[in-house]
């Protein structure tokens, strides 16, 4: 009769000893953590994209609280979130300009012909190891989507051989920038939707031969711009977003359609 109790006692004893051990360990190795770290983490977007340079939102929150500084604001969070975090920590926040990534290429299969059939690994860097380009233009987007895989926000997809960025979904974390072997992804202010969609620095005729929407460096945009905001250097136009007023004159003037106004309109 009592024999049945023996295993009970043994198991119970084990349980008691183990739980005591756990209790002691939790007390002994307790590390104080500022409760505000958890609160800040809670407020952050929680995508763990790494755009701030830290290994995820919690690491960023820890740094913010420990340094007691918001000099490196979360690139993803909106102004409201940042001011909430600021209020929590008693820090002032500036309303930052929201940025988005944009692709400096319009080399779709129609505009820029393929010169070969790439059969290797689906990765832009792997493709560059096989050949500098797979299209007529050596500056063009390879369309293998290394940046798409780096995007935590589902804001990019491949269409017709090039990457398309959804401005609404892009949070400006900047994680895609370094994944492009052609350096085609640049950050621009979200509100400034006028972009030069080309990085070709070849002479006009060569650029035109390679791609029908290449910037040929004809300087027409520079001439029509009233705000001194667009300049041609090395056969390539570049917009100075500090000065650009989005008048759209350069877009009209461009003979090759290599400047465009992004269709997605957003409130600043």
């Amino acid at each position, binding site marked *: 009769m009592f024999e049945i109790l023996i295993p009970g006692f043994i198991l119970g004893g084990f349980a008691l000893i183990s739980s005591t051990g756990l209790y002691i360990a939790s007390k002994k190795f307790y590390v104080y953590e500022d409760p505000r770290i958890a609160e800040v983490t809670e407020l952050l977007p929680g995508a763990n994209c790494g755009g701030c340079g830290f290994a995820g939102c919690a690491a960023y929150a820890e740094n913010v609280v420990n340094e007691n500084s918001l000099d490196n604001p979360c690139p993803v969070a909106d102004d409201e979130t940042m001011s909430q975090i600021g209020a929590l920590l008693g820090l002032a926040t500036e309303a930052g300009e929201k940025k988005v990534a944009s692709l400096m290429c319009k080399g779709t299969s129609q505009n820029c012909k393929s*010169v*070969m059939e790439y*059969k*290797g*690994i689906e*990765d832009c*860097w*792997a493709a560059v*190891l*096989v*050949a*500098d*380009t797979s299209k007529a233009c*050596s500056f063009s987007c390879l369309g293998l989507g290394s940046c798409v895989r780096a995007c935590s926000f589902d804001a990019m997809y491949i269409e017709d051989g090039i990457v398309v960025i959804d401005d609404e979904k892009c949070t400006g974390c900047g994680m895609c920038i370094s994944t492009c072997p052609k350096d085609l992804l640049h950050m621009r202010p979200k509100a400034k939707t006028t972009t030069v969609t080309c990085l070709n620095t*070849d002479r006009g005729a*060569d650029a035109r031969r390679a791609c029908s929407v290449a910037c040929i460096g004809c300087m027409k945009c520079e001439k029509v711009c009233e705000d001194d905001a667009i300049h041609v250097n090395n056969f390539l136009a570049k917009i100075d977003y500090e000065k650009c007023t989005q008048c759209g004159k350069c877009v009209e003037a461009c003979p090759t359609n290599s400047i465009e106004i992004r269709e997605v309109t957003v409130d600043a």
Partner: protein
Amino acid sequence: MPKTFEMGGIHPPEDKISSDEQIIFGEVPEKLLVPVDQHIGKPCEIIVEKGSVVERGQLVAKSTGFVSSNVHSPVAGKVDKIVKMPQLGGQIKQCALISPETSGENYADILKKDSNNNINLEKLSVENIRKTIADAGIVGMGGAGFPTHVKLSPPPEKTIDTLIINGAECEPYITSDHRVMLEHAEEMIKGILILQHLFDGVPIYIGIERNKPDAIETLEKAAKDYDKITVVPLIVKYPQGGEKQLIKAILNREVPSKGLPMDVGVVVQNVATVLSIHDAFYHNRPLMERVVTISGNLVKKPGNIMLPIGTPISYVMDKFEIDPEKVRVMISGGPMMGRTSYSFESPITKTTSALLFFDESRIIGRDENPCIRCGSCLRACPMGLAVAQLTEMIKANNIASAVQDSIMDCIECGSCSYVCPADRRLVHWMRLGKNIIRREN
């Protein structure tokens, strides 16, 4: 007793269908596209411009540092323009487009016009030898294109006690080195003697795989008066032409991980390079032409041809009657390490040992199947790397572990991809991994 290296290695079908074809000479083509960079190292500086008139042997691009190499014009003519062209192997590089005055003339006649010098080896100083080789723009002609004068200038703390001449030619299809050994054995020996003089009379081994018995015989005959030159027959095994494997096979010395042949006191030179060294001294001729094997299943009459650097592939295709409509795969070099190319306008460079033309039947770019852990890649790897695991680490972006498991020792010989039953692109992943590591540093 024929030798070989122990670890890994494979034996792909040799397919050396052009080994009995004598080196032929073509006419100078109507246009030459001389690429400005044909070597590993610092890029050159182009010193001609549109409209410049150049002589045969005149400098087109100048080396910009120690690890850099000159480029010369193989013909007299006029520079039409400087253009960016896709190269064999896929990079886009600047080329000088030259219209030769002598187009249509047989290249053999042009070679005959070069001067003939008598060299007194004893009077050549070490600096003089290195300078002549550097000025002549000689690079490793086996494929990598590393400037030869750099290889011949080891730092003072490294003593070189052996010189190896690489005549292994382990890649399938390629026979250009084989033909050079058969037809230019005397010149090769003269070139070797210059190198021997440079290194104070070190012993010299010429490693040749046993599938070239005529080359072994010819060189043994040519070298019989020199007791320090030994021809070493090697068991046929890929990648025996890899420096580290060749040193292991001939001397049984193992180049340490991340090390260079000079760490074990050895310098390795390719046979074509040795011939160019001879030409630089005895003919005052910089590196301006090379023997190229033209082969593949679309070539009705495969052969070996001496071509000036800058010859466009389209010229070769005309000469060998290759139908451009049928070509789907074009490889510069051998099928194991050679790179695919896509433009028929790409020019021949100093490192183009072969041009192979295939139709669809050449298997490339199949879809990857799941790894079944058969271990073929581990057994095939001549560096003893755990290829299957390394590629998984790269895919998982686990770079630190890959470095720890010596991914940087990969010689990209292609043995692993070749044997993989699941069509995995192991070499490509390894190259990508090495590329990521280089970028991060």
